[in-house]
């Protein structure tokens, strides 16, 4: 039995914020066969709707036994760069979306008042969120927990998006994300404060999958891919990562992994707020490039990162904006300024990564940790974004090739080959920015 056809809900959710209505569509198997899933499928779905729509989607492997199958992709036309972008969301957002009953969620139109879209057991609901404008992310989450109980994963925006800052960044709960291309701004334009998922349903799996998963993990362990775990080894591989790692000495806590990831690349860090002796604060270090940029403000960098996360602001932009060694109060004011419209960090080529085509880097959110460069990075990351695998893990696990992942979709060699060819075609389409043409499924 091919998981490719079974590990899906077969549903596309559509939330129309203008009319405050929601409905579901059946997912066409032909479309799934043509576009595989993830970013490629999102791009196709987006082509069927208004250009200001936002499509959230999962890959065929998201939530499955494949390692690091945590990905949710947000596809939209970037208001900052005016081209299609695919932003990866990790931790548990992908599986929670898939197990909530829809594989793809199209959010169209714009609400008159701030609102949240919630998906539970295949039901899409739009909740008004009055008084949510300008609320820091932790406060917004608290408000959401009170008003929309039971959600298990969230994508939210903060005051930076409300203030129309070009450096606003959507956040997975209060942990930040790899969004550096304006997904938060797109959400703000829709008056959409949060997208919430409650993955309490499940999907059937192929019986040999647990064994296949364990075998993959053993293979990765034997190849040494899973030796160095945690935030620091990944940061060290970045250009200015050595210094960024030093700043965290003695402040690191436990490692954190995304859904079913054998190689955690995130770590909690503890710190004391400047000027306080005992108040212990902590946060999850997730955005490697963001931290590398921000850590130039050595002693208070964690405090600044916390403020960026509260504001829903891209920490990398803040790091670039704060390069000069400013006193605490001035630096905080500078961060607050970045969270408003018209802010600029005077770096034309932002975001970019060494050895990677800038447009391609922005195409995939502008924040994915560049652990390789050139075509190797592009091919691996693009495949991960289509299949629903973490794009950072796929770089860390260099030994893991596409056929290893496709084995989770089918045990038939012919089918795997055909899928591989489809993915190649889709990668080409994604990189060229082409939008495929074909009809969408039937309205439910």
């Amino acid at each position, binding site marked *: 039995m091919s998981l490719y056809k079974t*590990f899906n809900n077969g549903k596309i959710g559509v939330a129309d914020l203008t009319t405050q209505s929601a409905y579901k569509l059946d997912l066409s198997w032909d479309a799934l066969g043509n576009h595989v899933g993830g970013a490629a499928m999102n791009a196709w779905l987006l082509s069927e709707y208004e250009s200001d729509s936002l499509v959230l989607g999962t890959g065929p492997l998201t*939530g*499955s*036994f494949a390692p690091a199958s945590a990905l949710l992709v947000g596809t939209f036309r970037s208001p900052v760069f005016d081209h299609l972008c695919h932003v990866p969301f990790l931790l*548990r957002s992908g*599986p929670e979306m898939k*197990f909530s009953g829809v594989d793809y969620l199209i959010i169209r139109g714009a609400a008159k008042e701030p609102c949240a879209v919630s998906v539970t*057991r295949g039901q899409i609901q739009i909740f008004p969120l009055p008084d949510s404008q300008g609320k820091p992310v932790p406060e917004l989450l608290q408000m959401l927990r009170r008003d929309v109980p*039971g959600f*298990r994963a969230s994508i939210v925006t903060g005051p930076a998006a409300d203030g129309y800052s070009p450096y606003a960044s959507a956040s997975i*709960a*209060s*942990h930040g994300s790899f969004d550096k291309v304006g997904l938060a701004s797109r959400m703000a334009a829709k008056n959409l404060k949060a997208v919430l998922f*409650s*993955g*309490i*349903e*499940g*999907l*059937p*799996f192929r019986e040999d999958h*647990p064994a296949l*998963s*364990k075998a993959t*993990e053993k293979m990765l362990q034997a190849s040494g891919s899973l030796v160095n*775990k945690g935030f620091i080894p990944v940061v060290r591989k970045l250009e200015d990562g050595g210094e960024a790692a030093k700043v965290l000495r003695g402040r690191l*806590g*436990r*490692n*954190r*992994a*995304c*859904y*079913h*990831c*054998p190689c*955690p690349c995130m*770590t*909690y860090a*503890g710190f004391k707020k400047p000027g306080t002796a005992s108040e*212990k*604060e*902590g*946060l*999850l270090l997730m955005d490697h490039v963001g931290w590398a940029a921000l850590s130039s403000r050595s002693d208070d960098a964690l405090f600044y990162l916390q403020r960026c996360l509260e504001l829903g602001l891209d920490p990398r932009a803040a790091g670039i904006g704060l390069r000069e060694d400013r006193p605490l109060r001035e630096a905080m004011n500078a961060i607050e300024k970045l969270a408003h419209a018209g802010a600029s960090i005077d770096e034309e080529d932002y975001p970019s990564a060494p050895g990677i085509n800038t447009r391609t880097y922005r195409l995939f959110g502008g924040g994915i940790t560049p652990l390789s460069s050139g075509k190797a990075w592009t091919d691996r990351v693009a495949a991960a974004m289509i299949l629903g695998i973490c794009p950072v893990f796929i770089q860390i696990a260099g030994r893991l090739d596409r056929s290893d992942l496709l084995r989770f979709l089918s045990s038939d060699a012919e089918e795997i080959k055909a899928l591989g060819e489809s993915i190649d075609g889709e990668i080409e389409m994604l990189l060229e920015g082409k939008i495929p043409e074909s009809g969408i499924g039937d309205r439910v």
Partner: protein
Amino acid sequence: MEASRQTELLLKLEDLRPRVPEKKKFSDWFMPRRNKYILFDPAKCTGCGTCEMICSTRNVAKVSPASASVRVLTDEKLGKNFAVLCQHCRRPLCLEACPTRAIEKGDDGIVRINDLFCVDCGLCTMACPEAAPLKDPGSQEIHKCDLCEGDPLCVKHCPESALTDTRGKALRWIKAARWSVQALTFLFLVILVVGTFCYFRAGTVELSCPTGTLQNIASSGTLILVGASSALALLILTVLFGRVFCGWVCPFGFVLDLVDKITPKKLGWPNFLKSRMAKYGILGGAVGSSALLGYQAFCTVCPIGTLCRSYGVQSVMQSAELAIVPALAATELAERRSWCRYLCPVGATLGIASLLRLLKIVIGARKCKKFSCIQCAEVCPVGIIDADQLREGNSPKIPMTECIMCLRCVDRCPYSAAKIRFRWQKATPGETNA
């Protein structure tokens, strides 16, 4: 008449689902079986959710983390993980709470829910200190770990080996050693040694307990060096190792432990007598009355002394004294080691000496499972480990003047969190002194 017949016809739960009595082998009285359970190491857990994923595949034949019997909770600020999963308690509260008796504990120690009888009321979740029976938010069914019938999938698939299935420590040598030492010293002091242990009737061998020596000084105003030196030796032993005499040597303590084995159910010690300071009062009274009466007043009724002088092969079988040991041993029916906790003046003297102790028992908070386990508190014979503190997630402060150094907590703790430390040492790095 009709009404009474109707009452007779009504079936009770006991008729439908009679409670199966727990089967206990003879050997279990001395060395209880250790059942399998899953040990969670929060330091290794990365919160990847693989355990939830794999567990759900067994529960509902789908990948559905919300339907798992294990749940990993994460403190999103500091990243501390905690796994909610069944510990297969020795005395499961869920089993007691279940109104349909759908929860059963098998001979293999696994606590299972019988789906046929479960009505998904959720009372088990409320009763469990760990809230381990988990309600599926989708189907509203209750899922509880059954250790995958002995081969837990979560343990096999955890990428960080944060979960291990274990029966605790393989060799419970401390318990075996203590029972052996207790039996040997009982044999030596009660049967073999000619004379008595206390000062009251010194025979050819002169031994003296510190309390006896104090009474002797008070009654006669003289200090007999031979007796005082043996009392001093006991005091030095207490300073070095704590009240090991009470836990390992005392022959009456051995008798109390045997009585406890025979009568595990307790009647309860009267609340108005529940004062550990009482034994210090008795000590003061014994010394004072010895001074007044001119002889060692407490030694006439001391259970240790009477045991040594009246029950040995060469001892004088004095009818009145014969009754003292069973009479005081009967206190064990009320509470474990209630004599030692509240009344024993010998323990009080050693308790005072143990203020200078070098050793202490600590329960390290980092390793301790705390609110779900509390096995250390359960086994402590003198009840000095605060289960409420453990449930609240704090390291309990152990009053070493009351601790009889039996080391049952050290022996029992499946997480190796209970340890012996020098009094100036911390429990584990970063923790406060207990």
